[in-house]
C-alpha cells in the first residue's frame, strides 16, 4: 500500500511544479500506479535504499534515481543495476 501512497503523493507534488522521482520495491504495483518517474530496486520491502549502514550503496541508488529527473517521457520506470 506504501507504493500506492507514494504514487498519489508524488503526482500531487509533480502537479505543484516540482520534479519528482520515487523508489519502487514492488514493480507490479508501480506499473499500476504509474508515477511520473520511478527506479525499481531489487531489495526486500522495508529496504528502499538497499542496506542499513551502507552509505556507498545508498548513494549509488540515489544517484541512479536522480539520473531519471531529466526524463520527460513519463511514466518512467527503470531498474537499478546492482
Amino acid at each position, binding site marked *: *500500500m*506504501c*507504493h*500506492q*501512497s*507514494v504514487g*498519489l*503523493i*508524488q*503526482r*500531487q*507534488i*509533480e*502537479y*505543484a*511544479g*516540482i*520534479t*519528482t*522521482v*520515487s*523508489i*519502487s*520495491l*514492488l514493480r*507490479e*504495483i508501480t506499473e*499500476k*500506479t*504509474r*508515477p*511520473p518517474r520511478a527506479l525499481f530496486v*531489487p*531489495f*526486500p*520491502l*522495508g*529496504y*528502499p*535504499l*538497499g*542496506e*542499513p*549502514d551502507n*552509505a556507498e550503496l*545508498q*548513494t549509488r541508488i*540515489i*544517484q541512479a*534515481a*536522480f539520473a531519471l*529527473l*531529466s526524463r*520527460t517521457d*513519463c*511514466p518512467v520506470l527503470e531498474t537499478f543495476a546492482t
Partner: protein
Amino acid sequence: MARIDDLDPLERLFLKGYPFKRFAPRPDDPVTTAVTTLRKPLAQCTVALVTTAGLSLPGQPPFDTSIKRGDSSFREIPSAVALESLEMNHRSWAFDYRGVLRDRNLALPLDRLREMRERGEIGAIAPRHYSFMGSIVGPAKLTRTSAPEVARLLAEDSVDVVLLTPV
C-alpha cells in the same frame, strides 16, 4: 527482490484484489498526467525527501494505527534533525522494519543528501521533509487533503526536486 507472490498470503490476497484502477492515472485528470521538467542542473537544485516509513519526531503525535482505512496525516521533519531520534510508527506485517530502525537513512537519506551537497552534486537541502505512514487503504483524504498540502509546503520552500521512498 520483492514480488507480490512472495508476500505473506493475506497481504498477497489483499494486493491482488485491491482496485488499484480506481486510483490510477486518468487521461482527463491534470494531476495524474502532470510532468514537471527539471529547469536547472541538479547541482543548483534544492532537494526534499518524502517517505511513507511512518517516521515522526519524539515530540510529535505518533501516527494512529487504529484508523481502519489508514492514517493519511503527515509529519514535518526539519533538515537539521538527528536521524536516530526519529521514531517509527509503521508496524505493517508486510515488511521488515529492522533495517530502518538500525539506519534511518534507509528510508530518509538525509546524511546521504548532506554528503551530496558537500560534494556539490546537489545545490541545497530543503528546510522541511515529510513523513507519511503508508498502509493507507482508503486514500481519498490523502489525495484531497494531505498530499496537496505537502505539495504546497514544498513549493513554499522553493523545492526543485523531491525523492520519495516507500517501505
